[in-house]
């Protein structure tokens, strides 16, 4: 059901039946390491190339999610997934392992909430009974596509972020569980003229603020209504900016805001301004956040995944960086 200008309210009751998170070794060594379902010991993730590694991460997350959700693989009506690589090959090549209908989407680092929102809408409308919403990213495959060869000695500035090696999946259905997907706000493409691909946090902050503010407007809510407003990878640079922009629009999110990119690594793990990538919001949301919702530590969470919609070619053509943010509300409910 349409809600306000940019949002969807899932009236018919959409719930998360199960989730799974898979990570690389660096994330395992971070503060959330124990919340992941599975972690690989090295960056190759039992593959021969970085691209295969990313597919293994995504495949593992889907497999574990199916196991945890206690459904048959062929019961899944749709796998909807995306990643950072050109033509979303990680998702395409992983989906070929499954006989289920597939939709590949690109939202850069906002893919986790983009797939969760679209999947929930399809379940809410009755077009699908079970939807698997997934996403993945890998430090090296992103590095070699967007930036430099992985062994290159170029010096990264302290505004840059480190792509999270990981994958997250969620199984969505109308079967009641303790985690309800209440609604979603679909973002607009926002470009405030930021042009530094090594500082995406400040590029994405306006998009995050725009979606957050629009969400409050559409649902007639305010920051106090949520235990947590989580952004994806604004990093240490974008976090103060999004708070300022929201404040300017009349909403003080200081007390409830956190950023996934700042939660995934310790400060001594050499990750500059924080973690980024499609996986960062997925491994945090489908791991720790879902666990805290189940246990009752959190009751209502707005997750706003943020993406920078650039390509290396277009930035070299002196273009600026347009960004987008999609928000999904997860609510704790009783199981019956």
């Amino acid at each position, binding site marked *: 059901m349409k809600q306000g200008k940019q949002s969807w309210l899932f009236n018919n009751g959409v719930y998360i039946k199960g989730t799974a998170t898979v990570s690389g070794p660096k994330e395992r060594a971070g503060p959330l390491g124990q919340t992941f379902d599975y972690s690989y010991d090295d*960056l190759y993730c039992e593959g021969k190339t970085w691209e295969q590694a990313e597919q293994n991460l995504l495949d593992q997350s889907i497999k574990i999610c199916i196991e945890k959700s206690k459904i048959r693989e062929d019961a899944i009506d749709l796998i909807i997934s995306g990643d950072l690589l050109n033509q979303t090959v990680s998702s395409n090549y992983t989906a070929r392992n499954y006989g289920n209908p597939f939709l590949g989407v690109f939202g850069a680092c906002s893919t986790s909430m983009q797939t969760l929102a679209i999947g929930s809408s399809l379940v809410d409308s009755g077009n699908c009974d079970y939807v698997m919403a997934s996403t993945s990213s890998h430090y*090296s495959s992103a590095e070699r596509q967007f930036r430099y060869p992985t062994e290159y000695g*170029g010096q990264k500035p302290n505004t840059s972020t480190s792509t999270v090696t990981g994958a997250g999946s969620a199984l969505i259905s109308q079967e009641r569980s303790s985690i309800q997907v209440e609604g979603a706000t679909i973002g607009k493409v926002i470009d405030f003229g930021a042009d530094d691909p090594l500082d995406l946090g400040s590029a994405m902050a306006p998009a995050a603020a725009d979606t957050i503010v629009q969400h409050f407007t559409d649902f007639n809510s305010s920051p106090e209504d949520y235990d947590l407003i989580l952004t994806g990878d604004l990093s240490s640079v974008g976090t103060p900016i999004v708070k300022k922009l929201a404040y300017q629009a009349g909403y003080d999110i200081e007390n409830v805001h956190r950023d996934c990119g700042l939660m995934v690594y310790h400060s001594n793990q050499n990750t500059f301004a924080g973690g980024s990538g499609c996986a960062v919001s997925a491994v945090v949301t489908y791991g720790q956040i879902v666990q805290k919702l189940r246990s009752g530590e959190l009751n209502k969470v707005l997750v706003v995944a943020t993406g920078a919609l650039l390509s290396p070619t277009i930035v070299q053509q002196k273009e600026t960086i347009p960004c987008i943010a999609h928000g999904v509300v997860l609510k704790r409910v009783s199981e019956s």
Partner: protein
Amino acid sequence: MIMDFFWAFVVGGSICVIGQLLLDIFKLTPAHVMSSFVVAGAVLDGFGLYDKLIEFAGAGATVPITSFGHSLLHGAMVQAEEHGFLGIAVGIFQLTSAGIASAILFGFLVAIIFKPKG
């Protein structure tokens, strides 16, 4: 001899500091910095200044990428003396041949033997 080493260290280090300032203050990429340095080396050699720097600082001037620009021009001028304008093209890669050829060869071999660690 000790002084040779001292000046190699100081001059080489100083050229790198200029590069670092270009990276930090002007936010150029390493490729931009290396390209401007190689052009600078050619220009300085055009004024006959780079040879003096090499005499003074030894490896402090031959090791930075600026010396690559110097060698490109130097080789070109040597051939130009003999063969005129056409000599420029003949001479450009003469002095830099060892550097480029070995970089290609070792790069190729390492790529065949090793695997990136990420």
